[in-house]
């Protein structure tokens, strides 16, 4: 473990214009060691990784490769030196096949022609190592996110990386897939690769990392062996305060709660069938299940966002029909998407336009009252603690946590009585998570009904009054009170004794 560092940052700073975002970072990556880099969004993790991989130059300070000072003029030079980075937003050519992607830029040739047979053989071998059963001829655009992640990892394997840098590799993986990934990470560690990864899942960090570096506000605030720091310790170091009370207290259930939503026989062709449940006013109902179990599709079908049929639907005790999103909104039912970048926010536009888009009719039937919009934005920034550098900045330039807060503020403009939130805290830092949890609980306390769809087990357990577990498009279990444990949820999600492989349909 005390091998000499392969790649080292010494006193690295980075400025964008007059703003310094990294202040003198020291970090070393050693052969045969897994190094976790953790911190809140905006702490400077991504910039640090990009400097390591040669995507961005350092403003000051030195980058040492095998104790020699180096300057990577391009990403290509970094790769030549054996440094491979896997981005959070995948770096795959969507229209090309898996095989073409893995060998992109380094195609094998026999004379003038491509050696397709050899490339096919090797692609299969790499995919087998990550237990990814996709056909090398599948276009990447048809893969699920988790398969794309595995293809990225296969691509890194094919490059014989000396240093592998991964930005939140497990964010889109199911637990089973995470296990496969960790197996590969261990194998690469044993083979002497230096590995750096970031994650918001501290349990994973404790499990696989040998060393942990914690960043806060552009500086390293802690670095040391993973065995010497607890998960609570990591969280506290990241936020700079105590976060042991991440989840708000659950109130005692009302004796006879009003039924806000009654769903019977909800079918979403190809994704979910015979979904039925009651949702009470004032409660948070968790929906758990593997990625691909139909949770998102069922909720989108319920809210009129995709074709679906219901045998019976009652909202606030009255029968209702929902065919399109506007019907759902008219009944006070609102869905907050899991994909804030592709379905939630217009990244090219500013905060005002995004905030009011869904409830635009409130700001004028034909002509929009822009002054009223500005007032709504003032209120939202205050209530949701949205931190933007400039009021008119593009939403795409906000940090993930602030985007998520803006998205919440946006759906709240529709004043929903029933709010369905899908992955409300994906890829955001722990401080913001805490704020969002408190906010959801406050909404429930006001008498609204909340559904939380989440892949994060801890989130479902910590937040929900009751839990539905979905498996293969059906409700596999309904849990209440003390039954809500990681073990029971996993059993229902996997189907006890059944194969744990569940892929996106």
């Amino acid at each position, binding site marked *: 473990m005390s091998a000499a560092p392969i790649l080292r940052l010494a006193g690295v700073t980075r400025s*964008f*214009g*007059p*703003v310094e*975002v990294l202040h003198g970072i020291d970090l070393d990556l050693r052969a045969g060691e897994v190094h976790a880099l953790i911190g809140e969004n905006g702490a400077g993790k991504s910039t640090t990784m990009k400097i390591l991989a040669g*995507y*961005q130059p350092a403003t000051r300070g030195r980058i040492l490769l095998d104790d020699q000072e180096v300057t990577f003029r391009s990403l290509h030079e970094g790769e030549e030196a054996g440094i491979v980075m896997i981005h959070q937003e995948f770096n795959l050519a969507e229209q090309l096949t898996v095989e073409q992607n893995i060998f992109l830029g380094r195609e094998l040739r026999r004379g003038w022609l491509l050696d397709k047979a050899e490339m096919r053989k090797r692609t299969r071998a790499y995919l087998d190592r990550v237990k990814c059963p996709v056909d090398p001829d599948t276009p990447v655009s048809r893969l699920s996110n988790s398969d794309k992640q595995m293809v990225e990892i296969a691509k890194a394997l094919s490059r014989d990386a000396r240093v592998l840098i991964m930005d939140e590799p497990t964010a889109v993986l199911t637990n089973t897939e995470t296990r496969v990934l960790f197996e590969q990470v261990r194998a690469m560690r044993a083979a002497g690769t230096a590995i750096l990864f970031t994650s918001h899942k501290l349990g994973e960090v404790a499990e696989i990392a040998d060393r942990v570096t914690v960043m806060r506000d552009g500086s390293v605030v802690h670095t040391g062996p993973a065995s010497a720091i607890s998960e609570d310790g990591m969280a506290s170091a990241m936020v700079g305060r105590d976060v042991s009370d991440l989840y708000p207290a659950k109130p005692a259930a009302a004796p006879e709660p009003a039924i806000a939503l009654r769903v019977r026989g909800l079918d979403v062709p190809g994704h979910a069938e015979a979904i039925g449940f009651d949702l009470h006013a004032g409660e948070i109902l968790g929906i758990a299940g593997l990625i691909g179990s139909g949770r998102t599709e069922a909720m989108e079908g319920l809210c009129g*966002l995709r074709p679906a049929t219901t045998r019976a639907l009652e909202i606030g005790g009255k029968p209702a029909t929902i065919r*399109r*999103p*506007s019907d759902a*909104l008219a009944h006070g039912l609102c*869905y907050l*998407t899991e994909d804030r970048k*592709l*379905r*939630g*926010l*217009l*990244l*090219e*536009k500013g905060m005002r*336009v995004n905030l009011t*888009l*869904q*409830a*635009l*009719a409130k700001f*004028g*039937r*034909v*002509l*929009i009252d*822009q002054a009223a919009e500005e007032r709504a934005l003032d209120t939202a920034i205050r209530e949701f603690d949205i931190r933007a*550098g*400039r009021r008119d900045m*593009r939403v795409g*330039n906000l940090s993930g946590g602030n985007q998520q807060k803006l998205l919440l503020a*946006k759906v709240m403009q*529709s004043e929903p009585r029933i709010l369905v939130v899908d992955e409300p805290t994906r890829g955001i830092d722990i401080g913001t998570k805490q704020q969002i949890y408190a906010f959801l609980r406050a909404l429930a306390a006001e008498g609204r009904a909340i559904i939380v769809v989440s892949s994060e087990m801890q989130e479902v357990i910590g937040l929900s009054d009751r839990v539905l577990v979905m498996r293969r498009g059906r409700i596999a279990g309904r849990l209440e009170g003390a039954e809500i444990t990681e073990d029971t949820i996993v059993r229902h999600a996997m189907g006890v004794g059944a194969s744990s492989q569940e892929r996106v349909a």
Partner: protein
Amino acid sequence: MAMDTTTPASRRSLPSMSVLGPIIALVALVVIGALLNPNFLGAANITNVLARSAFIGIIAVGTTFVITAGGLDLSVGSMAAFIAGLMILVMNAALPTLGVGVPIILLGMATALAAGLIAGLINGFLITTLGIEAFIVTLGTMGIYRSLVTWLADGGTLSLDFGLRTFYRPVYFDGILGISWPIIVFALVVIGGEILMSRSRFGRHCAATGSNEHVAHYSNVNVNRTRLFTYAMLGMLVGVATIMYVPRLGSASASTGVLWELEAIAAVIIGGTVLKGGFGRVWGTVIGVLILSMIDNILNLTDLVSPYLNGAIQGVIIVLAVILQREAKAKG
């Protein structure tokens, strides 16, 4: 690597190049024109430039909405020719019963508006409901309308009856207070369009649809209906432009409105609307139209450069405009 942080001061002090660029270009053209030919700023020439800009301009306002909502329409030039031909046929046919007078003119106008609306709805229906690429659909209808007008004219020219033509002429040549009707109509369309684009729900929905249709769908925007409206509106505006155009020559042929669609798209792009959708401005389109017709006018008034090079100069301007847009985007 785009920078995430920009200093507020450098953005506040001056509007970006994408806003200033077209305005500066227009002012420069006016100055050049005035220096090269003293008649350039005369009332007669200004009226001439504006009246000729009106046809493309009225259509380009509609095109601005289509492009902002992430669409494209290549059929407008042929559509204008077809509507002109249809209008002339209908009016000539009604002449024996209605005689020369206001009713027959109103009939012609109604024909043009209805035909434009229907043609726009057909484009919009094929693109939104059937989900065919806008480029393909409008390439197809472009060929269909061009062929139809050639067929209607039997390869020649469709001419309005002489008496009718004399009666209808004032719609192009007369006006109020010395401002001719095409200019007045153009101005009204522009004012309406600008308000619709920047202040109305419809304009906001167009920008949202063009920016990211999934986000728009999840935000309770009826994406298909928004797109359909933009095509229908463009069709109507083509009808309006044709109403202004027919009295000018009193005829329609296979060569009527050739390349109007590309001029309209060029004007929209020069004006700063983003070709892939998501952002549009009507006032920019007006400047784009004026830039294009002023280049034409200056080349015709002076013998510095051959008027045959008109297309080349317009081409350079279009490419320059897009480069400016890209730089503005990299900075923002």
